[in-house]
């Protein structure tokens, strides 16, 4: 494809979606070169790149098709229409919510648009410890370049960084923590701060407005509301994917797809469940194991002045040593929050202490933290119910303490009067000299902290050794010859940074590997 002439305005690509209501009652039998299960960050990229090569591609998305004009910019409504389990997906203990998109475009529709390249040190550790010496920084750089160009990924400009972001970045530098503008996949951001409720005006370059329309324009068939349920296997190959399309009224139809290539892009929670349900591909016994999720907290502080942190970009700046997980174990992102999120995610207290706190909403500094956690969790089905068995490991608790300590020091350096920790009971640090003593007194335990995960990873570990991994270095499953896994479930360790850009780049790289294999 060539650059359009400056004298012509090309028509924008159209996204055509086949919804359950469009499927006849008798069901559907389809054939394709490739079927992609999942339409999020990795599925969207693979659908486009395979379609570009001339392949006949079918995409299955379990979630609904919600047009951006239908987004309401109301968070609770967005949870109910755009998120997995209505925003209720949680770990087995119930003290960590695992947020994932469940709609056409997947989590890219509801994330905060933050983009980082995988740190070189992380890629190098995958080579050293998991035999992934093909995923060198040199190999991946052109793929990062490709997706950054396609998705308009760029560091926030000065107009995209509000006072909250500036104060946090300046505070970080005062206490010796690296900081800078966050990068986002946004074009002409309207600064509404509603990224996680879906970008109503299509500024965020999610799969919904980029790779999926591009794939559709090239002939890909995209089905919404259609959940892959089982596989038929012959001679070490998946020969058919069986899916159920469910209408809004609950009626369902069977969709059977025969394809030479099966590409799994359902995310780190749903992907292992698919294989567990069909009891295939698991000679290593590791499917569903090694779950990790970048446990996150909201950190809030009261400043002397009006800050209006909720006005502007959802995420503006970051702080933390993100180049090497051996040097830094956390990431802090200055971001906007609505009063509901501030209330549910922070320890603002109850009664008059709470109303005093929330009435000062305009003065609140707000940020989101995450830590580089160990892969200690497991995803599985139990009595017909999805389970995410993951609790904050004692080895990771010092990292949580460290990010709370660092953020508190940043806040006081930025002029905060007091800091509210994300504990289930109210914990307030009143001055900088109290930070260490308060943080040191914290203990690990269930339901002690208000935790959320935006980045599930690791349940279909990639590696060279079939005994220690599920998927090979080229994305192909060790046990199934024509099946590729391309989502964040591949990652042998967590990234320390938001994973979406790495998922895009990895999906692009693995698509090239599929095409090279023929």
């Amino acid at each position, binding site marked *: *494809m060539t*650059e359009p002439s400056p004298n012509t305005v090309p028509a*924008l*690509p159209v996204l055509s979606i086949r919804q359950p209501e469009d499927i006849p009652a008798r069901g559907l039998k389809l054939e394709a070169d490739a079927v992609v299960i999942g339409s999020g960050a990795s599925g969207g990229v693979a659908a486009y790149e395979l379609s570009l090569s001339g392949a006949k591609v079918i995409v299955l998305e379990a979630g609904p098709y919600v047009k*951006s004009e239908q987004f309401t*910019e*109301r968070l*609770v*409504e967005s949870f*109910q229409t755009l998120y997995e*389990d*209505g*925003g*209720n*997906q*949680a770990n*087995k*203990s*119930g*003290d960590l*919510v695992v947020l994932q998109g469940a709609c056409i475009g997947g989590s890219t529709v509801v994330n905060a648009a933050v983009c980082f390249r995988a740190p070189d040190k992380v890629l190098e550790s995958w080579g050293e410890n998991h035999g992934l010496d093909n995923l060198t920084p040199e190999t991946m750089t*052109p793929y990062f370049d490709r997706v950054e*160009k396609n998705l*308009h990924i760029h560091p926030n400009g000065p107009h995209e960084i509000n006072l909250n972001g500036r104060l946090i970045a300046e505070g970080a530098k005062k206490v010796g923590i690296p900081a800078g503008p966050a990068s986002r996949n946004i*074009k002409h951001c*309207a600064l*509404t701060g*509603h990224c996680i409720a879906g970008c*109503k*005006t299509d*500024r965020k370059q999610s799969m919904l*407005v*980029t790779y999926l*329309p591009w794939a559709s324009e090239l002939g890909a068939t995209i089905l919404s509301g259609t959940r892959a349920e089982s596989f038929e296997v012959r001679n070490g190959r998946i020969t058919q994917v069986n899916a159920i399309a*469910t209408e809004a009224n609950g009626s369902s139809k069977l969709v059977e797809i025969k394809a030479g290539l099966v590409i799994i892009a359902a995310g780190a929670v749903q992907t292992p469940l698919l294989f567990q349900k069909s009891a295939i591909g698991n000679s290593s016994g590791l499917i569903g194991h090694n779950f990790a999720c970048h446990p996150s907290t909201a950190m809030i502080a009261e400043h002397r002045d009006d800050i*209006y942190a*909720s006005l502007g970009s959802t995420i503006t700046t970051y702080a933390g040593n993100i180049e090497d997980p051996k040097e830094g174990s956390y990431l802090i992102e200055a971001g906007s929050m*609505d*009063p*509901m999120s501030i*209330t*549910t*995610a922070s320890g603002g207290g109850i*009664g*008059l202490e709470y*109303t005093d706190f*929330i*009435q000062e909403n305009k003065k609140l500094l707000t940020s989101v933290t995450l830590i580089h956690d160990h892969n200690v969790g497991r995803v599985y089905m139990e009595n017909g*119910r*999805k*389970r995410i068995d993951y609790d904050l490991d004692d080895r990771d608790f010092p990292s949580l303490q460290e990010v709370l300590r660092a953020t508190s020091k940043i806040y006081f350096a930025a002029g905060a009067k007091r800091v509210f920790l994300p504990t*289930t*009971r*109210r914990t307030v640090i009143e001055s900088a000299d109290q930070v260490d003593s308060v943080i040191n007194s914290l203990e690990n*335990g269930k*339901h002690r902290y208000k*935790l959320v995960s935006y980045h599930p990873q690791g349940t279909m570990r990639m590696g060279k050794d079939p005994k220690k991994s599920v998927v090979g270095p*080229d994305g192909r499953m060790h046990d199934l010859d024509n099946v590729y896994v391309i989502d964040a479930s591949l990652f042998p360790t967590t990234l320390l940074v938001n994973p979406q850009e790495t998922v895009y780049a990895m999906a692009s790289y693995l698509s*090239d*590997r599929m095409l090279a294999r023929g």
Partner: protein
Amino acid sequence: MSPCCCYAIWVRLYRRTFAKLGVLAGAGALVLPGCTGSPPARSDAAQLSPAERVMFERFAEVYIPTEGTNLKPLSEVPYLDNIDRVLVFLDAPTLDEVHTGLKLFDYGSVVIGLHFTRFSNLHAEDRLDYIRKWDDGGETQRAIVGLIKKLVAIGYWQDVEAARRVGYQGPVSDEAKILSLGNAPMPVVVAIANESP
């Protein structure tokens, strides 16, 4: 209901809860309880019983005491109906666990603090004290009181006017008539020469 009857119910529920701690603790998720694999039994029928609505009212009165503040009065926010709509999205087993947890909390005051009456019947100061005891209690207590607080916060703050009272702008794109950019143009294809496997 007599105090003895309340006590018997509470003990039975508490034992049942500890028997399946992991399951009920699941009722403490940040936004809502659950980690389900089955679709919610969406229904227009009310999810909260009359007694549960009263319990939530008594809870909200002391959790978010709006009187004398700049906050939108609780009486003007349909937070109970909002909570009800949120619960519609739970599957039946999880909803059962939520109902069990709410009963445990409401009747727990018979034993905890020796109030000999339900939480819903306590005076405001006693209710606050009782909530703090659960905040500092065991894992199951922290899970349940955390869930109730979350539901009340969600019910109250999803009211746009309530949020605007504290400086949050709420939905803006329609009001400001911000134009959509639409789908992105097809990209320029750049081949990558890569010799790796």
